[in-house]
């Protein structure tokens, strides 16, 4: 579903992504771990068509993103680190707007409410202006959109950053539901422990390169942490 072939991106002299090969199948969650500036967000932007690759190819459901970014986006759902909603509109109205943009048919109030409740937004908050929502609530509205869209590919950029543990757990529950529904998920994150819990595959990135990828269950949490620290310091290869 989400594939890259030798995907590279330069910003001037700086190589932000170096020859990435990736293949995320439907029903798979790929967690990309790495420090700030490793290139995780760059991959997401390339898959969305926000950036043009210097070389290589990004494919979404077989569609070359560079050739037809709009078609690729129709199949994707993107969750940014900071979900912003229109404060003057309620959660319901925001979902109606974004679902409408995504071309979701039959956005009746009942269906919209259903999706929001499914995403965990309390009924009392549905008609309240989104300007008063917490970060977690805003993210739930975004998840509701993912549910509404039934997107084939999910691109998540630091989705649990700033969330309290309960909200974080709630989010991962929803994520697993999406995986079970057949979505291919690429998640960029710092959260090693959550990554190990939800991911099918984990990738470690540093300086634009995917150093290694492995099945999440191959390592214990502690081993994962040690490997991460070693890779990030460059000691793992020695």
């Amino acid at each position, binding site marked *: 579903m989400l594939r890259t072939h030798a995907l590279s991106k330069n910003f001037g002299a700086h190589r932000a992504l170096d020859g990435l090969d990736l293949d995320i199948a439907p029903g798979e969650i790929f967690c990309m771990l790495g420090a700030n500036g490793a290139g995780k967000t760059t991959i997401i932007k390339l898959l969305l068509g926000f950036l043009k690759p210097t070389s290589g190819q990004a494919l979404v459901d077989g569609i070359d993103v560079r050739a037809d970014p*709009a078609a690729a986006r129709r199949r994707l759902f*993107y*969750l*940014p680190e900071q979900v*912003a909603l229109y404060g003057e509109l309620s959660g319901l109205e925001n979902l109606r707007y974004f679902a409408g943009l995504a071309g979701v048919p039959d956005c009746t109030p009942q269906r919209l409410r259903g999706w929001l409740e499914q995403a965990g937004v309390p009924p009392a908050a549905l008609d309240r202006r989104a300007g008063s929502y917490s970060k977690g609530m805003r993210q739930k509205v975004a998840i509701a959109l993912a549910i509404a869209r039934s997107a084939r590919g999910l*691109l998540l950029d630091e989705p649990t950053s700033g969330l309290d543990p309960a909200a974080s757990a709630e989010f991962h529950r929803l994520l697993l539901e999406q995986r079970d529904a057949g979505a291919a998920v690429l998640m960029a994150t710092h959260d090693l422990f959550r990554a190990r819990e939800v991911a099918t595959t984990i990738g470690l990135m540093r300086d634009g390169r995917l150093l290694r990828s492995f099945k999440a269950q191959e390592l214990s949490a502690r081993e994962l942490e040690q490997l991460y620290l070693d890779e990030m310091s460059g000691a793992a290869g020695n």
Partner: protein
Amino acid sequence: MNAAFIVMRTEALRMARGRWLLPLWLAFIALCAYAAWEGATWSTQRGAALAAIQDEQREVHQMRRNQIVNELTPDNKSRYGGAIYATAMSFRATLPQGELPVLSAGRAEGYPMAAKIFPFVASNTIFDDYMAGMENPAVMAAGRFDLAFVLVWLLPLLVLAGSFDLWSFERERGMEPWLLAQPVSPACYLLAKAAARALLLVGPAVLVLVAVLCFTVAAGPAALLQVAVLSTLYGLFWLGLAAFVNLFAQSAAQAALGCVAGWLALVVLVPALALGLADLLAPPSSPAERTNALRAMAMQARAEARQQADGAARSERVPAPNIPDNLRRRALEVERGEQLIRAAVQPYRTQDERRLYWMALLRASSPAIAFQDALERLAGADAGRALRFQDQAHAFLLDVRRLTQRYLEQDRLLTAADYDHGMPRFVHREAPPAERLGALGFDAGVIALFLLVLLAAGARRLRRQTFHTE
């Protein structure tokens, strides 16, 4: 449902819920209403002044007619030369107000609104009595707070205040990537949002303007339509500018700065530069220099007349004609004087025409200038109309002189019947509709061209660079 419609609908909903829209509308309504009231007051005063000038002519004619009927006898004829000699005919030519005078005082106060026409008065002095005003120069310097000011200067600020954050709002809040991740093109977002702003900002502003005009002046539907179309075009231009600025601005504050800078450039700086350029390329003629040249010409004419008078043997005709021969001699002096005046004034006329040509051309340098020009034309207060009046007043003076010459040749005195039915009347003829529409079309074209340039530049920006920037 079409994505553009969804964006437009949501944008309109957000605007309606924003606390700024209603105060903005109310402020504009208040400004328009006040400006229209000021315009109506000015127009009423002007109308009264024009009526007083016409009354002056009527009173003079009435007085002279009464003198002929009630006081004139064969023995006291010479005392009533003003009434019976065609050489003393007195007329007033006035420039009537346009169809929408409340719209703009325009150039009306920079040109004479009337002329005093006597057969023997020098053609360069017929407007002198109506050139100097008594208005406080501080008021003139501040500028008339008319509808044209509200539209040209303040309507852009209204539109910019309501649309400066067209996209920078989303960018500042980090919504941009999420929005662009939906299968909707950036151009679609921008155009749909701009359409919503046009509907809720430009639309009501134009409606308010038309309503205010309908309330203050009895204008025809064609004139109102022309005002509405031009104002809409102008408002859309500023909306386009806001959208263009938003292609670059990273935050709402940056966008606001860019929009205000654009307003400053197009409404203040570019016109000032254009005026400076006009001064450089075609400086105005010096009226003081022209006056001195004409006075020197008058000295020359007087000297010639004296020479001729000294040289010619002057024998008194018997019987004496009805109209004394000295008036015939005066007529010849006036004709000679007119030739000298025309020769003296021609270089200054040419210089002034050149200046007006450049000023008319330079109105294409900014949509604000073009719009101001259009409003002045619609108000009937443009320079072209004022100059046409001056030409027609001159032509009327020459007609009056020709009539006087006929009376002199026929030795015919004026009668009461002449005052009742036979006096020439000045009637101002407007420019042909095609000419007027052509000028308005040019102004609209300038605004539309600027808008198209913005759209083209914006499209180029969107094409060249992925919107969510690298």
